[in-house]
């Protein structure tokens, strides 16, 4: 296909991606170097005959508005935003390392820095939900493969719903059942015999319920993909393994799993990408006090009552994209190699 024809077919899609994905990356890099103007303050000294002098500081509203209009992007701040307390906080960390006693203290104080708190949950969520959902999905796939035919249709139907449901809505449905007034929340309180145990007060419980939600909504994807893969496991190999006396578990371990390997890698890649952006459940669970994620931090910088903190949101975005790059680029390079050797 000649270049010009390719470009004509590809054009609309390419322009859309360049304008609305590539350009915004440039835009966040630029924005992250600026910071909102501080308010213009006027200091005036009033002296009274007998009361002495007092200095008062007031905000010059019109000058502030004027300044914001002249330079709407804010003032140049260099990498300052990246290093402040709300982001990488290197100075605070040095301070913590200098003064803290014991590893526990270091960890808990670093955890109180917003970015590290978000990072801790994001990474934990990613690293727990991904394998849990994959294992659960594989178990469902193996079980469904065994049960009578008539069960299979309903299982696939009811499995697709938790996965395709709007994340905010699915998370709300679980949250209403899991919070202290819901049916499962009350059950949890009864089991632990602690009437005050609720997602509002207990951080571990919040994390656990969010991870339970993640597993619930992600397992079906693994199930569907693995179930399709199971239909393609070579029967000859299975029969040969049976004749050689392999038990059921051995057949799964040595025949089924190896033949699912490419699918496992595919599911792993997709799930890592999806779980790293975890965001809506934190809104639905109203969990920001106990668990935040990188996406949620960006959202809360943008969704403020007063001035939107573009600089802060942009810096967090750049850091997030940096993490993604470190995570994903090795896999991408592998895919690129496979594509160019003609396996795609």
């Amino acid at each position, binding site marked *: 296909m000649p*270049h010009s024809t390719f470009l004509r077919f590809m054009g609309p899609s390419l322009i*859309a991606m360049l304008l609305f994905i*590539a350009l915004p990356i440039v835009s*966040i890099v630029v924005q992250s170097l600026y910071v909102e103007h501080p308010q213009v303050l006027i200091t005036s000294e009033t002296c009274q005959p007998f009361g002495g002098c007092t200095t008062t500081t007031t905000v010059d509203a019109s000058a502030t508005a004027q300044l914001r209009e002249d330079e709407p992007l804010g003032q140049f701040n260099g990498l300052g935003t990246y290093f402040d307390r709300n982001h990488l906080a290197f100075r605070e960390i040095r301070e913590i390392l200098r003064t803290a006693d014991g590893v526990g203290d270091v960890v808990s104080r670093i955890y109180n820095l917003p970015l590290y708190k978000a990072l801790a949950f994001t990474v934990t969520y990613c690293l727990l939900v991904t394998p849990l959902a994959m294992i659960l999905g594989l178990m469902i796939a193996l079980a469904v493969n065994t049960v009578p035919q008539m069960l299979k249709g309903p299982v696939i139907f009811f*499995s697709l719903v938790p996965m395709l449901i709007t994340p905010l809505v699915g998370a709300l449905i679980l949250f*209403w059942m899991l919070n202290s007034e819901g049916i499962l929340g009350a059950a949890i309180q009864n089991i632990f015999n602690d009437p005050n145990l609720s997602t509002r007060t207990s951080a571990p419980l919040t994390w656990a319920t969010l991870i339970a939600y993640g597993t619930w909504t992600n397992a079906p*994807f693994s199930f569907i993909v693995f179930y399709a893969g199971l239909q393609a496991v070579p029967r000859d190999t299975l029969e040969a393994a049976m004749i050689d006396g392999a038990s059921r578990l051995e057949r799964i371990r040595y025949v089924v799993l190896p033949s699912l390997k490419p699918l496992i890698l595919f599911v792993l890649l997709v799930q890592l990408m999806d779980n790293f952006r975890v965001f809506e459940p934190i809104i639905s669970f109203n969990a920001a006090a106990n668990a935040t994620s990188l*996406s949620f931090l960006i959202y809360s910088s943008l969704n403020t009552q007063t001035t939107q903190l573009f600089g802060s949101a942009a810096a967090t975005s750049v850091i997030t994209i940096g993490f993604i790059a470190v*995570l*994903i680029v090795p896999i991408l390079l592998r895919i690129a190699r496979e594509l160019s050797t003609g396996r795609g």
Partner: protein
Amino acid sequence: MADAVNRRPPMVVFVASGFVLLWLLIAAFPFAWTVWGSFKVQADFFSRDTWWHAILGTNTTRVTGDAFTGGGYYGAWVLTGFWRAALSTAIVTVFVTVISLTFGTLGGYALARSTHRYRFVILVAALFFRAMPEITVVSGYLYPFFALNIWGYLPTAIIVLVALNQPFTLWMMYSFFQGIPRDLDESALVDGCTRFQAFRLAIVPVMWPGVITTGLFSFLLAYNDFTVTGLVLNENNQTMVPKISSYLGQIQAQGNVMYAVAAVVSVAIPIFLLVMFFQRYLVSGLTAGAVKG
């Protein structure tokens, strides 16, 4: 002999069936519970004393005289204007689906038929774009959108969603077109068609299964979105999902959680219908990417 592989001891079938039924319960019960509860009053939906209240609607009967009430739905759709949000959602999803399919089909076709190396660059870049959380890009839009004075309107959200949809649509259509034999359009080229005529005459008639599958996922992406619609649309143009999140702030304080419950059920119902009617396409779409690796 072939059935030797399929023969299972009854014990294994029993355990597997039990496990499958348990999963069915976990997957379906939350929805059944919420749909049932959406026709109750709040004291029944959140009844700590006994769950029989939620099932029988004791308080609902006391308050409204009937075991079921449409109060939540009335409050959401009529009193708080959820119908307007539903209308916005309909507009956004239809336009996003149609535009992203058009762009993605043309692009995916070009990628599948091109032999130049730069197509890999596009495919891998698209995968990287797909990996970035949407909100990182959205935070780059807001300031320019305010500056250009296009923040808040439906077309803005539609264009942004189309763009964010492209990486996925391109990959799906790319792998679908790879499965259509090259001979089909190449013979049309030999017969003197231009590339576009070949695409229209030879490819368009056979591409619909792939287009429907990809379209379903484009629809879901637009319908389920909260990140873009929540930050880019103003209050009058809000779609259903950000509208629900706005309920969480205000309505809980007013003690009308049931509006939010009714709205949640209203959003879930189209998804049920979609799964019911398009199950086969959805499954084939989910596994299509996997086969390609």
